[in-house]
């Protein structure tokens, strides 16, 4: 190795032989030509490091790459009980079932629907129920099983993310002082993409907002709520459920049905969050 390259290694702290290291060190101290070479190389190295080592990739590029890589979740398989019901309808028992359904309709006709919150909550059953999905998804998020696909603190960027990635309906991303938006997830069922948004407050509590257009809910294919709940929410009512570890709210806002779950138990979400929904 010629001396100039040994100086290069010295500048980069890559000289492993102590004897060579000490020799170069001594030469730098005593020989002005060697010192000049050392200073020049150090100068270039330091200049490049200082000027360019902290350069950032442009934000649009980072977002673009994230959007291309972190695609929405793949379509969920229809659960077995639901598949059974589907098959049942197609099968030879369809007629018997039809008779049964008619019987229940006739029996229930004299009774007005019970729209008490307890009754409405009791009606929400099945893996495709929006309320049940909201509750389950929220726990997966808190436990770290479900991660955000797009992290951003700008509500408009979140809306754009939904729009650019195939969510077919207008989404509502409230801008409120005590809850900061932190990211978004898109799930997909039967080709329909659904929007999920996450917020965080200063206490590091999480608020999860799941919204689906009323037309999707009313089709009752892969996400639904009971007819009574549709009616209850469409009349402008708010359904509130207090679980031990979270509170869940359901409402209708513009054309979307919205389920909200949060581990902020003391927070009055009606004032701190829902007031900013419109």
């Amino acid at each position, binding site marked *: 190795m010629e001396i100039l*390259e040994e100086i290069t290694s010295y500048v980069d702290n890559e000289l492993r032989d102590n004897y060579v290291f000490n020799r170069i060190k001594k030469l730098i101290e005593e020989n002005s030509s060697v010192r000049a070479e050392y200073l*020049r190389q150090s100068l270039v190295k330091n200049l490049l490091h200082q000027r360019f080592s902290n350069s950032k990739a442009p934000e649009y590029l980072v977002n673009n790459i*994230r959007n*291309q*890589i972190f695609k929405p*979740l793949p379509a969920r398989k229809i659960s077995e009980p639901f598949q059974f019901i589907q098959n049942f309808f197609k099968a030879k028992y369809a007629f018997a079932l039809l008779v049964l359904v008619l019987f229940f309709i006739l029996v229930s006709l004299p009774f007005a629907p019970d729209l008490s919150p307890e009754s409405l909550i009791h009606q929400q059953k099945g893996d495709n129920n929006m309320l049940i999905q909201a509750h389950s998804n929220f726990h997966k998020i808190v436990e770290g099983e479900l*991660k955000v696909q797009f992290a951003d603190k700008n509500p408009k960027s979140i809306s754009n993310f939904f729009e650019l990635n195939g969510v077919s309906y207008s989404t509502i991303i409230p801008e409120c002082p005590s809850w900061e938006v932190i990211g978004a997830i898109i799930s997909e069922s039967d080709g329909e993409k659904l929007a999920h948004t996450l917020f965080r407050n200063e206490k590091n509590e999480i608020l999860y907002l799941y919204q689906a257009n009323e037309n999707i809910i009313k089709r009752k294919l892969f996400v639904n709520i009971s007819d009574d709940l549709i009616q209850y929410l469409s009349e402008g009512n708010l359904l509130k459920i207090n679980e031990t570890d979270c509170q869940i709210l359901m409402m209708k806002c513009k054309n979307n049905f919205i389920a909200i779950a949060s581990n902020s138990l003391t927070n009055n979400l009606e004032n701190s969050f829902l007031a900013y929904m419109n």
Partner: protein
Amino acid sequence: MQLRSASNTDTKLQILYQDFEKEAIPHMDSLYNFALKMTGDEDDADDLVQETYLKAFRFFDKFEKGTNCKAWLFRIMKNSYINDYRKQAKEPNKVDYEDVQNFYENIKSDEVELKHYEQDVFTNLLDDEISKAITGLPEDFRTIIILSDIEGFTYDEIADFVDIPVGTVRSRLHRARKMLYSLLYDYAKDKGFVSSSGQKK
């Protein structure tokens, strides 16, 4: 109220997203910086980084966890650069090493206080001028100096993903710095930060 759990989401894909976010995404700034200095063009750098990340995600199952993800990404980028970008791009006129050698010998000085003088001279240069000088280096030299002096890779790491011996890394780095010094010196002279006799103005 008892709420039953919803259908399982694709946890495998979730884990993959999570690992990629943690391992690969944080190196995007470094890769962009490298791409920009290699191509000298923002659009080309965007394309190169994008392509690198899409390839990396496609082959992320091949990445051995716990190993150097940054070096793995740089290897992918280097291959993309060689296979795709370099074929299309016409190399601009590059500095000739022999010319540099002659020039370098002429401006060599035995002044002990050289450091202070030269730092002042180059400090006045704009980032764009320094970037232009880097882009003016021949590709093999440019690669090494960016990886070493901007990205902070060790000789062993550079040798690994450029696929050359450590001795060649050292030799190219020495030459690259020499060429870059000459180019920057020229810029400084053109800008009037230094006189033709080599004295600071």
